[in-house]
C-alpha cells in the first residue's frame, strides 16, 4: 500500500478520527457482536497510514457497525472507537459526494 497524505488530511478535516493510541490488541474485534473482522483495528491502521483504497473498500463494514460501543467500553487504550467509525462515515460520504459531483 502507499501512504496517501492527501487522504490523511481529509481524515483530519472529516472530523474527530483519532486512533493513534490503538495498540492493535484485537479486543474490539473479539468482542464485536456482528463479528465485523475488519473493524475496528485493521481499518484503523489503514486509516492511520492513509490507505484510501482500503478504507473506501470497507464501506460496508463501516456502515454495518451498530455503534453499540461494546468494543469501546473494553478498549484498553481508551480509543473512541464509535466516534471514529462515525467520522469515517462522514469522510466516506464526502468522498461519495465528490465522486458524484465529478
Amino acid at each position: 500500500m502507499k501512504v496517501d497524505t492527501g487522504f490523511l488530511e481529509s481524515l483530519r478535516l472529516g472530523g474527530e478520527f483519532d486512533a493513534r493510541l490503538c495498540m492493535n490488541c484485537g479486543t474490539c474485534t473479539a468482542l464485536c457482536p456482528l463479528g465485523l473482522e475488519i473493524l475496528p483495528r485493521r481499518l484503523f491502521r489503514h486509516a492511520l497510514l492513509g490507505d484510501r483504497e482500503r478504507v473506501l473498500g470497507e464501506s460496508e463494514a463501516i456502515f454495518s457497525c451498530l455503534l453499540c460501543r461494546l468494543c469501546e467500553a473494553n478498549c484498553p487504550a481508551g480509543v473512541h472507537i464509535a466516534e471514529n467509525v462515525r467520522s469515517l462515515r462522514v469522510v466516506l460520504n464526502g468522498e461519495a459526494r465528490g465522486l458524484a459531483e465529478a
Partner: protein
Amino acid sequence: MTGRKIGVVVCQCGGNISDYVDTEKVRAEAAKEGDVVSTQVQMFACSDAAQQAVIQEIREKKLDGIVVCSCSPKLHTATFRAMAERAGLNPYEYTQVNLREQCSWAHTHDRAAATEKGIRLVRAGIAKTALSRPLEKMRVETLPQALVIGAGIAGLRSALALSDLGISVHLIERADRPGGQVRRWGTLFPNDKAGKDLIEDLVRRVHERDNIQLYLGTELVERSGRVGAFSVKVRAPTGDLISLDVGAIVVATGFEPYTPAAGEFGYGLDGVLTLPELKELLAATPGPLVYRGRPVRSIAYVYCVGSRQPAEGGTQRTYCSRYCCSATSHLATVVTGLDPAVHQFHLFRDVRTYGKYEALYERALKGGSVFLRYSEEDLPTVVREDGGLVVRIHDRLLAGEEVEIRPDLVVLVTGMIPRANDDLVRNLKLPIGPDGFFREVHVKLRPVETVVDGVYIVGTAQGPKNVAESVATALASVSKAGALLLKGYVDLDPLVARVDPTLCEWCGECQTACPYGAIDEVEYGDRHIAQVNAVLCKGEGACVPACPKAAISVQGYTNEQITSMIDALAKEVA
C-alpha cells in the same frame, strides 16, 4: 618446618561446606602439618562469636599466622584481615582457603573426593602462610586538586561540584569552546530548555570561580605519578607544555554521533539527514521547518541507525544509545508545535522512552505521529524514485504488508559511538570495553571508578547517556574524588610487585608486560634496573613470568610461596 606458629580454622558454613566435606577430617589432617599449633572447626567462622574465639586463640597461643578455610576470598578477605588485626596479628599473615565455591559446592556428588581435595587446598594455604611476611599498608598523601578532561556538560558540572568542595580544578577542553555536544541540539528533552542556554549558564559559573581554571584547545600529553598525586602535562594551543599536579582525574570526554555509511538507509541522497543534522537545522531556522528552501510537509524517521547492531566484527555496537527514542519523540512534538500539519512517520524497532520519558512518546502519538515497527531481519529501505524519496517498510501491524511512504525528509536516528581518543587512552591506561567506551570497575557498585585508582569516567565517555544521566555520573565522580582528596591521604594495599636489585639487569620485559605503567627504569649504582611504582602497581603479576632473571615478584605471592603451595597440593601425588 619453619618454626612458625600457625592456626587453622575450618568453617562448616552451616552445612554449605560440611554437608559435602568432612570438616573434622580436614581439621585433623591440618593439625598434622608441621607449623600448625592450633586447629578448630567453626559452624560460621564469620560470626562475631567465632571471630572472638579465633582472636582469643591467636592471643593465647601467640600465633603468627592464621588460615581460615571457608568461602571465597572475594567475600571475606577484608573481614578476616580485620579480625587478624584486632588480635594483634599483621593482617597480611592471614590466608583464606576457599572450601566452599572451589570445593564443597563444586563436588556435591562425591564427599570423599571433596574432602581429599579440601585437605590439599588447606595444606597449600598453610604452606603459603608459613612463608608469609608482615607487610605494612602504604599511606600516601593526596593533593586537593583535580584535573577534569573535557568541558562538555558532564565535565563542566564535575568542575563546579569539585570547586564547591574546595577542590581546585584544572578543566581542559580539546575544542576551542566549551560545551560539547549539548550546545548543538537546540531545545532538549525533557523540559524544552535550549542546550546553548544550559551550557552558557554553566560556563559563566565556571568563569566566576577562583578555583577553576579552564584551558581551551588543550590536551593531555603525559601523565605520571599515582593516586592522590599525579603529575600531568597538558599542551596549550600555543604549543607550550604546562605541568600540573593533581590528586584525581575525571575523564569526561564524551561521545560522537554515529555517521552512517554512504547508502545506509539512503544516507547521501538529497533529503536524507541524520538526527544531529536535523536538530541543528531546527536550531538554526526560526518557524516551521524548511529544507533547501522548501517547506517540509512530511518526515520519516528511521530509528536505531548505528545502534543495536549484530555482535559480529571488531568493535561491538550491540548497545542501545538510550537518548534517541526520547530525543526523536520530543523532536516530533517540537515539529508539531511549529506546524501541526506535518505528517510524521516513525520507523522504530522498539520504543525505549523509558521511565519518565514515556510521556514524550505519548505526546508524540497524540500530536499525530504514526509509529511503524520493523525488525532487525527486515530493514526499511530508502531510495529516490521519480524525483522523490521513497521509504518502504513491512508493517507488522498489517501482517507484514509493504507500506510505501513518500516523505519530504528522511531522518536517520543515529546512535552514539565512542570518541576516538587513542592518546588519552595510552596516557591514562584507561580500560576500554568491547563496545569501545571506557570501562568502569563494577557495573553496579563502582560505576564511575576505573582500575586506575583516582581516575574516574563520567558522562557519555563511559557509555550512552542523556544529559541527566551524564550529570548524575559527573556528580558521582565528585563524591568519589572528594572522599579521596579531602581526607589528605590514602592507604594502599602492599600486595605489589617488588624488584630484587641484585638480580635485575634491566631488559624492560616487565615494563612491557605491565598494563598499568607501574614499572620505571631507574639508576642503581652504575647500572639501570626496574623499579616498581608501588602506588600504581595492582599486584596482578603480569611482570613476574616476563622477567628472565626471576628478579621480580609480588609481595604476598612470592615465587617461593607459590612453589611451596604447588608442592603441598601435589604431596603424595607427584
